[in-house]
């Protein structure tokens, strides 16, 4: 009986020896969380084009994951038509460059829809900033996703004054919609042009065009992508247009096109790419 009494005593002492420091630690931890926040994170936010879901960039992400040493965690959002946001996936705790994909339940084409999608992107963006407290990000948009980004940057980013965009890359973004003309302006372009002064001055933007032939990538006319210069040039710090030709340059293949993937790695993700790729990318720029 005496031995048992000792055991209980010892157990109690150990329990207190664990619980008390655990309690003080958790209080201290909560305090430090309150003051610190999460500011080192700089996500890459991707917006797919019309009729594409939140899984649009899966191939691109696998392609990127193949060659990078760093694994990016992936968070996918779909904004419902009522503005509610559905999340799937998560962001790893120590991941400072996660991929976030923002898609829309109503992903239809057309100016009215794109205007609305930019508003939804703003809803999603504000929710993300509130949750993850980041103050820098990079943006990637494919097709109309590029237009949604441009509209968002022109009109809505101001609503999150603490957040800065580092880089924007659009892939085959039809700044002048389906128009093949070099002069006629669509209402979509007029809107983008009208608000262009709202673009953040420090922005570095890349606009990639794919071409299967001399005029288009099969869906988006080259001339329409080329209209981007009227919007970005002289409004932002750097604006670069890149044309990719060769295999897999049909509109919907572009995001997972090998050359574009290496462009994304070098210019958007700022990765330390091998000199071979660097050279190849530079040749791309000259063409």
């Amino acid at each position, binding site marked *: 009986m005496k031995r048992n009494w000792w055991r209980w005593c010892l157990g109690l002492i150990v329990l207190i020896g*664990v*619980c008390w*420091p*655990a*309690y*003080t*630690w*958790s*209080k201290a*931890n*909560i305090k430090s*969380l*309150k003051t610190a926040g999460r500011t080192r994170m700089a996500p890459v936010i991707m917006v797919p084009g019309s009729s594409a879901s939140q899984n649009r960039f899966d191939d691109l992400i696998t392609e990127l994951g*193949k*060659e990078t*040493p760093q694994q990016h*965690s992936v*968070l996918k959002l779909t904004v419902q038509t009522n503005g509610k946001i559905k*999340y*799937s996936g*998560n*962001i*790893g*705790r120590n991941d400072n460059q996660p991929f976030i994909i923002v898609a829309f339940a109503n992903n239809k084409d057309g100016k009215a829809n794109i205007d609305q999608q930019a508003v939804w992107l703003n809803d999603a963006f504000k929710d993300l900033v*509130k*949750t*993850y*407290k980041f103050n820098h990000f990079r943006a990637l948009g494919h097709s109309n996703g590029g237009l949604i980004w441009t509209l968002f940057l022109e009109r809505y980013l101001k609503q999150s004054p603490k957040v800065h965009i580092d880089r924007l890359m659009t892939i085959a973004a039809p700044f002048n919609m389906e128009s093949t003309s070099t002069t006629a302006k669509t209402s979509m372009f007029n809107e983008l042009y009208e608000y262009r002064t709202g673009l953040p001055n420090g922005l570095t933007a890349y606009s990639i065009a794919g071409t299967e032939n001399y005029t288009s990538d099969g869906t988006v006319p080259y001339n329409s992508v080329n209209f981007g210069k009227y919007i970005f040039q002289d409004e932002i710090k750097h604006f670069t247009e890149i044309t990719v030709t060769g295999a897999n340059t049909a509109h919907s293949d572009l995001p997972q096109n090998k050359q574009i993937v290496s462009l994304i790695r070098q210019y958007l993700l700022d990765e330390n790419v091998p000199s071979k790729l660097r050279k190849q990318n530079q040749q791309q720029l000259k063409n």
Partner: protein
Amino acid sequence: MIKQIANQLLKWEAWLNQRRYFHALRDTLTLLFPFVLIGAFINIFNQAIFHKNGFLAQIYHLSSWFPGFKSLMTYTTMLSATVNGVIAVVAAFTAANFAARALKRDNLLAGLTAAVSFCLLNFNYAAFTKQGQGASSQFLEQNLGSQGIFLALLVGLITGWLFNHLTFKPHSHQLIETRRHLLNRAQENWLPMTVTLVVFSLLSYGISFVSKNGLNGLFYSAFRSPFVNPGSVFLNIVSVTLLSNFFWVIGIIGPIDFSGNSSVSTVQNLEYALQHGSAWGAPNPITLHTVFDSFANVGGPGMTLALIIAILWRSHNADFRTVAKASWLPSLFNFNQPLLVGLPIMFSPILAIPFLLAPMASLLITWGALKLSFMPPVVYPVERTMPGFLVGWLGTGGDWRALLVSLINLAVATAIYLPFILLENRSMEGGRTDEA
């Protein structure tokens, strides 16, 4: 009525144990016990003590004053990667060994063949592609650890079966091996060896066209698919937990081990709590994290700390008591693998039932407490190695009611395990008379 069911259960367990391959399976698990136990203790050192986010490291701020913390971190990680990292290969060897021994075949060769076959199944074909060169290992290492145990057991048993059916006379053991006898062994066993290797190598190559992570990867992606997004619907959480724990019972360890702090709902909860200074009214009170991770995972999946309490309290089974006495410390930090293979819980109908039921009861109690606003949800970050019964308390920022719910859960889980331990007592006494 209950007695009848109990008797049926006992009969069924006894019947199962007489099946040759099932028996080999259980023997394998028991033989693995010392390795798994050592592995669990290594895990305590590696994950709870010498790890930046380890529970003991954090509460005692070990990293700032403990001499050689970083080197010990490296050292224990090495230990964990090796001892725990190849446990499935050992399992494949052992399973084939026992299976072939049942029919007196060449068990040593069968075991070795199975171990090689298992490695065959986990070859990393990506090593051939241009990008993979030099970057990654030749083998899919993550499949060689406890993740791979289910597949390893399967490979072992199949290999044993092939040896049993493709050799024509029993193996004669020699106390002192001569070269001639050894060569004879090769001659007698070339057929099953070749067949096994060919079968598994072809299987492995075939799978490589479908899945990048081998057969095991295919398994896991299939088993994990129901767990992708259980959301906040309680019924989903219950079924996901049930399924996950069932997988543990058959040796598929951890499709959802500990969903952790990173899901969006958890981050949203944390943000809310930090802004409002309290966990009350957090936007996502019921998620896998707030209910399952925090309250139904005490001592590891299946509320196994309750099982240990039940065994130490009432069990007359000396083996059970030995295993429980050796495993309580890892179980405090939520490593329950020693119990899974030692008792074993894996492939044991009697223990599987409470293993599945106990977490359900905890889920229900926790859900009720949250719904009735008896306690706030767990919102602050908690670590995987935090003792299970403290998670609620610390995760709510020190709310005593959450601690109370944790303790109630533990008590209820113990009450659920107890009848099965008593039943097991009876079966043991029955077994003894059989042997006599």
